[in-house]
């Protein structure tokens, strides 16, 4: 299923590729580019301030709904300057019209929204895709701008128990399949609950494939079900001596109760996401009858022993059980309930619905003082780890052995590499080692996501030194978050260890720690800009521009050396802070989310691309014309 879709996208990619040529000597004056750049960079700081009043006008109409030419009244139209800060909103009148007055010159994005409709941007090919920015000159009176606002799709159905009774007040989610496959942070398409008849109705959906899942709440969790009939029990009660005292009674009670509960269930009625049937909706379509039967399912208990790095029982350990598959927005109370290990390292995880789980143990949380009392330690001190994969199908699992291993480290220094004066201190930057989901095209998707693997991070000291500890094996990204005082001007130029930039290949922790890392910071920003024009020489905005490293060896899904930008309505595009090096530029009519990160996609772009060179702290100007 997945593979087939990918092939289709790749074929489409070729037809979308525009043949482009470099335009020489058509550069615009430097001022306009620098001004635009400065305006965008300062946008966030100016958030709380009132924008300067201007003289330009931007007016138009919102159309759509079921008929793409019909005006949409009472739509909320939002106009954002530059980076999205300083948004101002209007509501369309009964004829779908809107007008923003008194605008300063600048570059704007325009979006329209209305409940049950699909939020859409001006110039976007379809809802959810990036739009085109609009460049407004001083005193320009731009009218006739049209934003299409299509009606959202609907999925509706009923939740029923095996007894035929409806399941009320239960959250139902529609999870876009693309996101479910991407792993990582899950975004659901809204939160909806079933009513007292068990009926749910999810609306405002973009076209696409969805997993539809019901999430029964805690209040109707597990029930102990009597294995013997009422008549049997009453017959025994009525007999003389039919009320046994302990301990026989206790043993009997333990035997006749088994733990069952409602568990998250996907359409058409499975607790396992991977075998659920996706529900497909077209633009504005209403899918009825997506009924989900909710069954009582036997819950399992997982138990075992965790031992420390030294081989001895490890009581001071945090145990977690994470379902492999779409990470449903479950509360901790609803899902499996792990216990803390006892002094012999024995732990149990109760209330585990069927499915695949990753059992993680992290050393720490609490530790024993010499006198035997408990001492709490923070998660940052939990550096030992153990992981096991477990398949659960209702039966209890015993004897799971977890042996802690020491975590790996990532350490080094943050330092200025730019020509400007370095800040007084690099203290306070957060260096995070973040697990990579399986979101990247071209990477096998059957592998388990790294749910349960936590982000590890450290804060730099005044000299810029940092040490991230407790890293488990896996694929990671390095994120550098600067304190606001330096974050406005400084950016990462390179992250090097043993002479290589770590960002030029996937970062994998497998064989040991990575130390002596240098994170080179710069306040000299690189910029690639230019104007995209059609064969006739008119500005072309209805395109995506992909800028990517010329060297195939640098292509990997997390590379900073690839960017996709859209030109504004005047054809001008900007790509910021690409690392220095040789690049290629291509223009396409459409690019799907994250598609541009795959090597096979970039390979197709190569023949139709043109070369450029990016230098540290310099602006590279490259106008492009479509042949």
């Amino acid at each position, binding site marked *: 299923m997945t593979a087939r879709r990918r092939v289709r996208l790749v074929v489409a990619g070729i037809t979308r590729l525009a043949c482009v040529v470099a335009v020489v000597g058509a550069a615009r004056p430097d001022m306009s580019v620098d001004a635009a750049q400065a305006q965008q960079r300062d946008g966030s700081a100016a958030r709380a301030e009132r924008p300067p009043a201007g003289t330009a006008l931007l007016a138009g109409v919102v159309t759509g709904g079921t008929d793409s030419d019909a005006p949409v009244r009472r739509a909320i139209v939002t106009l954002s300057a530059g980076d999205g800060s300083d948004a101002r909103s209007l*509501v369309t*009148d009964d004829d779908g019209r809107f007008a923003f007055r008194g605008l300063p010159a600048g570059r704007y994005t325009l979006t329209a929204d209305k*409940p049950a409709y699909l939020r859409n941007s001006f110039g976007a090919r379809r809802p959810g895709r990036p739009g085109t920015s609009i460049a407004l000159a001083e005193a320009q009176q731009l009218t006739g701008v049209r934003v299409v606002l299509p009606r959202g799709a609907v999925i509706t159905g009923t939740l029923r128990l095996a007894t035929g009774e409806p399941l009320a007040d239960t959250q139902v989610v529609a999870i876009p399949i693309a*996101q479910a496959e991407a792993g990582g942070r899950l975004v659901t398409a809204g939160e909806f609950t079933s009513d007292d008849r068990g009926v749910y109705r999810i*609306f405002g959906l973009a076209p696409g494939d969805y997993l539809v899942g019901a999430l029964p709440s805690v209040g109707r969790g597990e029930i102990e079900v009597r294995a013997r009939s*009422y008549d049997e029990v009453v017959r025994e009660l009525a007999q003389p001596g039919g009320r046994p005292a*302990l301990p026989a009674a206790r043993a009997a*009670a333990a035997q006749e109760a088994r733990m069952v509960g409602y568990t998250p269930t996907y359409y058409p009625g499975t607790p396992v996401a991977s075998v659920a049937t996706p529900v497909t909706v077209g633009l504005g379509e209403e899918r009825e009858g997506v009924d989900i039967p909710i069954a009582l399912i036997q819950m399992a208990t997982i138990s075992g022993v965790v031992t420390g790095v030294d081989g001895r029982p490890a009581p001071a350990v945090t145990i977690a059980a994470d379902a492999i598959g779409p990470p449903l927005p479950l509360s901790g109370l609803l899902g499996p309930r792990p216990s803390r290990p*006892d002094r012999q390292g024995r732990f149990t995880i109760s209330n585990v619905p069927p499915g695949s789980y990753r059992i993680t143990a992290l050393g720490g949380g609490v530790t024993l003082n010499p006198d035997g009392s408990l001492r709490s330690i923070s998660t940052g001190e939990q550096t030992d780890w153990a992981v096991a994969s477990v398949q659960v199908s209702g039966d209890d699992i015993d004897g799971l052995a977890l042996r802690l291993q020491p975590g790996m480290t990532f350490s080094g220094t943050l330092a200025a590499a730019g020509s400007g004066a370095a800040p007084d201190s690099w203290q306070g930057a957060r260096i995070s080692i973040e697990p990579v989901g399986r979101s990247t095209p071209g990477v096998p998707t059957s592998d388990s996501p790294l749910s349960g693997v936590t982000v590890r991070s450290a804060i730099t000291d005044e000299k810029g030194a940092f040490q991230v500890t407790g890293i488990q094996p896996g694929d990671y990204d390095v994120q550098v978050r600067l304190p606001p005082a330096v974050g406005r001007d400084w950016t990462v130029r390179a992250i090097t260890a043993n002479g290589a930039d770590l960002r030029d290949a996937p970062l994998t922790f497998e064989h040991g720690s990575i130390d002596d890392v240098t994170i080179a910071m710069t306040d000299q920003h690189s910029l690639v800009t230019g104007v995209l024009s059609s064969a006739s020489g008119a500005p072309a905005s209805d395109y995506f521009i992909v800028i990517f490293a010329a060297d195939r060896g640098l292509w990997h899904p997390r590379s900073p050396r690839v960017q996709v930008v859209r030109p504004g309505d005047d054809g001008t595009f900007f790509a910021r802070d690409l690392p220095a090096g040789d690049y290629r530029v291509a223009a396409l009519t459409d690019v799907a989310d994250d598609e541009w990160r795959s090597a096979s996609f970039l390979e197709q772009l190569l023949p139709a691309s043109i070369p450029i060179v990016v230098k540290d702290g310099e602006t590279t100007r490259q106008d492009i014309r479509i042949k």
Partner: protein
Amino acid sequence: MRRRLALSCAAIGAMVWGAAMQPRAMAPAGALDGTGAATQAMQAFTVQTGTGAISGVVTDGATGQPIDGAIVSLAGPGRGGPGPLPRQLTDARGRFVFTRLPAFANYALSASKPGYFTGSYKETPGINVAVRLELRDGQWFQQANLTLWRPAAITGTVRDERGEPLVGIPVRALVRVRVAGHEQWASGPDARTDDRGRYRLAGLRPGAYVIQVPSVQLTLPGEAAAQATTVAPPPPGGAAATAPTPLAMTREDENADLRLLVGVFPTPLPGSGATAYPMAFHPTARSLDQASAVTVDYGDERTDVDVQMDLVPTVRVSGHLTGDADVLARVPVRILPVGAESIGDAAEAALTLSDDAGAFTFLRVPAGDYVVVASTRQFGLASPAAGSSLGQIMPSRAQLFAGGLSTGGIAGTNNLRYVARTGRGPGVMGRIPLSVGRQDVRDLVIPLQAGVTVTGHYLWDESPNPPEGVRTGPVIRLEPAGGDLSLGLPFGGLSGSRDPTPPVPVPLEITRVLPGRYVIDVGLGTQGFSVASIEYEGRDLLNTFLVVDGSRDITGVVVHLTSRTTSLTGYVRTSAGSPVDSGAVLFFPTDQAAWRDYGLSASHFKTATITPLGSYRAPALVPGEYFVAAVSDQDRQRWTDPEFLQTLVARAARLTVAPGLDRTLDLVMEGSR
């Protein structure tokens, strides 16, 4: 027999055993002293088994048919812990049976099933009084029958003036309730309209409901708007992730940088700022007194209860708060329709925040008769089924009143709750009436009052020092006598754990008490003491109001606490002399003026359950003059109705309660045989 379960954490086990060694840990459940938590922890890990059994049948109240697959829950000793007190499913004939139960006087039995209200043993429809079940060793109680009732539902469509359905807007049921003898509006369940403009309010108890579409014209000063960051539209490119309701702000006034929040409540027109959709009621009413109520019984489904929204002209209302300079900033100012003050969240026609100097502006206020309330507190009444979603509309009430939320019960009501929200900083309150017509209102002045302080001291058996072992001071609460919760519920002496030695006097101090009439409720926990009298200016505040006029602090309140206990027991018989096996005994004041204006706790009204053997034991009674009467289970909650009390007077016994009361009082239940 007690069995200690294997505990996964040895340290917790040690803590539980340590607590069990102390005699205090054996106090009855619910003891709110320092070791109460440990007592509960011990119970949670301890299970008892015995030789008793309870069985019964669960039936549908409307059809009388047995209910298959109902979940029957039995709460007894050891509840909450893992143990052989399972929840059970009824069989095809609605039957259930619990066996091996220990003797216990307070079993609570209830049944639930999707599509029904949860039902308790001997619950009377509409009156949620849990009757406890007593079981002796070896007893098999076979009549533990439970009746379940189906909730009612009200559905309809909300349309605007062009007939277009309004999507994603809140709709709420309001219900008339009686608090301290006065009728007020309470907030009931709420729902959002779907993409067809349809709403469904389900889970309704029988009663008369007014269906409201709330609509708050929210004006935010620019500074506050910038901080309400979650109001900003989500970033582009995530259309699939959009919530069904977009949120946005319009900048309505460039000069003052005021913004109007739009998108959740019905969206007003752009541009002039001269119109709005005011709150509306089924079918076309615009005020509470014009709205027609929809009456439902169990299981009813009322459809086509539509609401029509209309655009009306609005005006701008501006003014400023006066008072101490340090309390004027960021005070929520609410324009409330007359009669709507008790509704709480989203009850306003318009809402804003004062700026740093205390000035405020409402951009769009529809015509009407209002009360403008400027207060760092908000109180509301909420029925048990009330939703919380209206409080989360941006900026959420938690942002407006960042000090926190407290909630509590109201005596004599069917689980009605008050919901109190407080802001940070000093509590202030200003309230003025406002009639809005077609003209802008300018220079509205709202004086803020900070309230006065009430101080005094406690006497423990006439000693200023609490006795040994008393770890926590009393909690004293002033309750607005007439149930006007906009005065708040000022209290003092929050029960911090005190060092028990040496005994030192406990201060009595309640700050920020607004002008009004109050009744005093003293919470002592279980320390072996009760209130004998509350002395102030020669009067006993147990039997009269504390009147605060705001001009001066109140000093010299003396709370006399006594260790002398009261005991009152008796038997209830029919007029023919045979024992009564169900019903309740009501205690109520002989002073008819005290049948209303008794605050929230109604401490002079008490109920005792009649046991199957016909006996009763009175709960702790506040000193005073009482009528005592036996009533049926159906009538046990009717004491809030003065007319009902009047019917009891002729046959009621009179009782004077004073510290040390110890007597028996046998009663006759009229109308029973």
